[in-house]
């Protein structure tokens, strides 16, 4: 038993070292002028992998970027503060931030700006006007786009349920607010229920199963992500109920399900291309170009007629369709 414990402990230590090495910031050397640092909130899912892929692909388009560093905060604000300090020590020329908890990292952001280093934030809002540029997708409009499609598809009349991500999370609340605003314009649309599903497919599935029991008729599902609308559709199929029109995002599993089951769906993409847009803004700022304080990027939704064009039946359910428009060398590896 002593020997087996030593072997187990040795394996753990080796794995820990490998993990630590994997967590070191990535960097790429080239010959040019700017070093860009990106403090990323976390890397825990495939969406974040595409965020990184789009970042790297965009960096590759700019020969003026001599090197970049990516730090992963593992969703911890205190780690993100430390990551930003580490990036400053590396002598970066611009800082890109995808915030964990926006307001918690304000001191680090303001310190960076005070040192004359532009700070570009994307993927969340921070309550300070000291950052140089905020690159964002209009999430309220995004939620509204899906809602408008659904309302129009139902002819302005019908009973729907709404499924959101994490309660209190900006990206969930903004999209929900946008959707509710649109549905108010359609008095014939009745919202039977709204639940937060934490962007968890198993949770969404059990919540939808309960909704199916509670409501004999569900004409449509508004969801801010395919992570919920996909299992919701599965629950409907299991229950032998008609597959009503749904909204979601650009998750391949959702798109594949829609195509395979001839179901109507609208993809309102919560795009990972924002990281690339942040890189563009950083380069423009470093070149001395004028960049608006807030840069709102609009990405078009994908209606049911085009879902089959973007769905990738041979790829992972966790591929993010439409976000893969980059050279193959940057795509997340299968």
């Amino acid at each position, binding site marked *: 038993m002593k020997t087996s*414990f030593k072997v187990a402990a040795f394996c753990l230590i080796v*794995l820990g070292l490998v993990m630590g090495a994997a967590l070191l910031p990535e960097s790429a050397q080239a010959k040019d002028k700017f070093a860009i640092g990106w403090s990323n909130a976390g890397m*825990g899912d495939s969406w974040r*992998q595409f965020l990184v892929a789009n970042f790297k692909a965009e960096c590759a388009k700019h020969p003026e970027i001599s090197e970049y560093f990516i730090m992963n905060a593992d969703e911890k604000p205190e780690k993100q503060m430390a990551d930003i300090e580490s990036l400053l020590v590396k002598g970066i020329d611009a800082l890109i931030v995808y915030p964990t908890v926006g307001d918690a990292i304000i001191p680090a952001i303001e310190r960076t700006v005070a040192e004359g280093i532009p700070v570009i934030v994307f993927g969340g809002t921070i309550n300070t006007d000291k950052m140089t540029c905020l690159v964002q997708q209009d999430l309220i409009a995004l939620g509204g786009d899906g809602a408008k499609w659904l309302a129009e598809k139902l002819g302005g009349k019908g009973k729907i349920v709404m499924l959101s991500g994490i309660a209190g999370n900006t990206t969930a609340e903004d999209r929900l607010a946008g959707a509710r605003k649109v549905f108010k314009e359609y008095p014939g649309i009745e919202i039977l229920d709204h*639940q937060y599903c934490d962007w*968890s*497919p198993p949770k969404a599935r059990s919540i939808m199963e309960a909704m199916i*029991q509670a409501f004999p008729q569900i004409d449509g599902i508004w969801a801010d992500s395919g992570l919920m609308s996909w299992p919701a559709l599965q629950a409907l199929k299991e229950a032998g109920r008609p597959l009503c029109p749904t909204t979601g995002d650009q998750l391949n*599993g959702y798109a594949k399900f829609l195509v395979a089951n001839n179901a109507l769906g609208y993809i309102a993409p919560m795009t990972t291309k924002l990281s690339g847009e942040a890189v563009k803004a950083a380069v423009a700022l470093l070149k001395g170009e004028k960049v608006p304080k807030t840069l709102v990027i609009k990405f078009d939704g994908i209606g049911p007629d085009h879902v089959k064009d973007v769905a990738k039946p041979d790829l992972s359910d966790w591929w993010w369709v439409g976000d893969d428009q980059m050279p193959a060398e940057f795509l*997340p590896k299968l």
Partner: protein
Amino acid sequence: MDAMKIISRNKGLYLALAALLLTAVVINIVTGVNFFKISNLLNVTRSFCLLGITSIGHAIVIISGGGGLDLSIADNISTANVIAATYMNGNDALFFPVLLLALAFGTMVGLINGLLVTKRNVPPFIATLGSGIVLRGLRLMWTKGLPQGKIPPVLIEIGNGSTFGIPNMFFVFLLIAVFASVLLNSTGYGRRLYAVGNNADVATLNGIKSHRVVLIAYIICGVLASLVGVLLGGYMGMSDQKIGEGYHFNSLAAAVLGGVSMTGGKGSVHGVVIGVLIMLLVTNLALLIHVPIQSQMLILGGLIILALWFNERKNLNRIWAGKEG
């Protein structure tokens, strides 16, 4: 008489269950929403089986005492789920060998947790939290965030199908519940587990290999968690990095609700099963009457605090009496 003894010892639990079932009847009368509809019961049964199996494993670890806890359950489940999808890859012929692989993986996780706790005296909270984080990192490195593979039809049939109108998963759960109950109540290991949970030092002095008993508890928990990971793949028809999220907390909550003492040495499979039933009843009823998820958390949290208070008050009274003496 044995049945009456069991009911009398767990009368609090049965009262709570009866109250909830009565609430379900009242809700049906007032709102027309029927908890007892077959289709709803089938849905609840599947969730019950998954949480039930996890909770039985977690309860065995808690009963072993010494602050026994397994916070790596969620990541164990998620990793086993990804292993299942990746290596089965939609092929029924690979179901059984890959199932064995996933269970071997769960055994290894339990072994590492158990060795850390027993041989290195790492507090279970720290040991299992750490192993869970390592698992998460390894899974991310392996999948790069993109779990591959496909769940085969035979596993989907186990996860979603029924035999004689009863969900197939229920038969798996029943097998495990009966096995665990026999293990705890009718075997030497079960007697030793409770003895160690009550007082490991006294158990050791009485010739019980306490470390081995605790190690086996963690292995059982690891194996059951990985089994749930595979079954979840069948139920959801997909693999997901985070499919196990929440199971470590929910299984702990169900065990506590079911009368398992956090100080060890007390608890039963039967109590855990009722604890799981209570949790799922509360959640399902709340959803059926559109109670927002935040309020559901309040209700569940309140129930857990009450259960802890009821379970532990005798221990606390004994401790306070000792201090005043």
